[in-house]
């Protein structure tokens, strides 16, 4: 296995605005190995989602490019499955049919029984077989996100892209889903890129944490290797000095090196451009 699996080279993106192009990302370089779990962390508006969308093919980079297994990423595709922040299940299809849509689209030529088996297998992975017949509106937020993950896994992606998958969930549900995700990652060994705001989540789950600088023209600030043995236990890690060291590193980056000054009263001229660009970059 060569080291090159997924490679972002000099990726930059400009968004057109009435006042001229706005550079959201500049010179983002990242090499990711097969099976690696990568977290993207940074202040809101720094362009994390934009990086993910470029890898997904939903956005086109203005400069540079993304190469996955020696092929350039030009458009979205099921080999780069996305788990969206707000689950994005089709509300008119039940859980089973939501996953089935992805399976039918990606596993062409399979028999009905094989399709059914594959759908149920993926629901099993996220422990959602019991709700197969329910509509998304009938299940809780955490369950919806599980189904969203099952749908992405069912595409058998080379890379799993997760945009703050647990951001909208309460702490207990989130911990539960993080554990599930670690199990699944250990089983399947997909490459995962996950965006998060949560420092604990990043350290617990990741092999490497990519910390991004603030926009505009955001880029990769530091990369932290998390060298903790797997399987990881959140309770055991709570007292682990190594774990706390990693946490501290990320916190230092976020709150000292890339301190985001949120103006309380009047904005100062210096960070005006940074804050007004928030909505564009997000």
């Amino acid at each position, binding site marked *: 296995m060569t080291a090159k699996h997924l490679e972002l080279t000099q990726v930059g993106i400009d968004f057109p605005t009435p006042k001229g192009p706005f550079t959201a990302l500049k010179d983002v370089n990242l090499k990711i190995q097969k099976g690696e779990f990568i977290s993207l962390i940074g202040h809101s508006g720094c362009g994390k989602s934009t990086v993910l969308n470029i890898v*997904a093919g939903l956005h086109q980079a203005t400069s540079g490019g993304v190469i996955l297994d020696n092929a350039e990423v030009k458009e*979205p595709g*099921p080999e780069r499955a*996305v788990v*969206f922040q707000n689950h*994005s299940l*089709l*509300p008119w299809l039940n859980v089973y049919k939501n996953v089935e849509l992805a399976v039918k*689209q990606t596993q062409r030529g399979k028999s009905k029984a094989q399709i059914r088996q594959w759908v149920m297998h993926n629901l099993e992975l996220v422990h959602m077989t019991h709700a197969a017949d329910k509509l998304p*509106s009938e299940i809780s937020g955490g369950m919806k996100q599980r189904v969203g993950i099952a749908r992405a896994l069912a595409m058998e992606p080379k890379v799993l892209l997760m945009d703050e998958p647990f951001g909208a969930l309460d702490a207990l549900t989130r911990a539960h889903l993080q554990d599930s995700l670690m199990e699944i990652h250990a089983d399947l060994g997909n490459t995962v890129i996950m965006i998060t705001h949560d420092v604990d989540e990043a350290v617990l789950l990741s092999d490497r944490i990519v910390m991004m600088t603030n926009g505009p023209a955001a880029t990769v600030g530091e990369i932290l290797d998390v060298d903790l043995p797997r399987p990881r236990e959140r309770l055991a890690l709570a007292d682990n000095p190594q774990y706390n060291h990693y946490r501290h590193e990320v916190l230092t980056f976020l709150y000292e090196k890339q301190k985001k000054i949120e103006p309380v009263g009047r904005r100062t001229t210096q960070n005006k451009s940074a804050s007004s660009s928030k909505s564009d970059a997000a």
Partner: protein
Amino acid sequence: MSKSASFVTSIGQFKQGNPGKMLLTTLQTLLLPLVGLLLFLAVWNGVAKSIDTSLGQFPGPAQVWTQTLTLIDEHSAQREKAEAFYERQEQRNAARVAQDPTYEPKVRPFTGAPTFFDQIWTSLYTVMIGFLIASVIAVPVGIVCGLSKSAYTAINPLIQLFKPVSPLAWLPLVTMVVSALYVSDDPMFSKSFVTSAFTVSLCCLWPTLINTAVGVSNIEKDLVNVSRVLRLKPLTHLTKIVLPASIPMIFTGLRLSLGIGWMVLIAAEMLAQNPGLGKFVWDEFQNGSSESLARIMVAVLTIGAIGFVLDRLMLSLQRKVSWDKNSVLR
């Protein structure tokens, strides 16, 4: 329909386990409309007595009720006449065939004047055909407008231009065009029917078109992204994502369209003397007997009741096909 509404509320109350309150709300939803109705009848009765027209006193609820019964009687009398006519014709034909086996019996339709209920049927049939034609055009065009911004920009000025046009302005044009183009010795539909239906269509197009376009263009971006990641083909994208997502808005448009279509139809029938409820009203007005006003009032109430029923039918259809069961539809 208030009955079904109250039923839903009562289930809600029942789940909360409050039978006393449940009974109260049920009574309220049943009684309050009744109170409103009775008040209306009382005011109508009082006001009607003090209005004297050249056709006699303005009809109160009692006269209108009498005329309703008369119209029903007239209808059954006409039916009996028609049946008797067909029976006589059959007997005559049978007798002639018995005399001369080579004789080919002629069957002539009954030509008695259409009754009130015949006119209702004609109007309903016409509005439905007009509405269907409009929907078949408006929904696809609306989807195209919703999917493509350029298509919308191109079509939008036309929509804005034609949307406010009164049906009565279209009517002479439609009448002339139908007379010129719909020429056939044995027409499947009468010209008056085609004219009315097309006039209805022209006015039914716009609400459906606009609402469909808005519904389609407002599909959640993430759902579109799901479709892109799955690389759904355009047709699959349309059937699996676009159509289901915009069904609620499409139906809102359809309901508005049907309501407008029904109003337009009555006006068109009055003006163009095309058979239907509108013609019934106009004929009664021209007739000018002492019962005319009461008979017109029966027609007015019937038009209202049918409009209401049509809307409720669309609403229950919308409830049936819409995935968003939590949304409150009224």
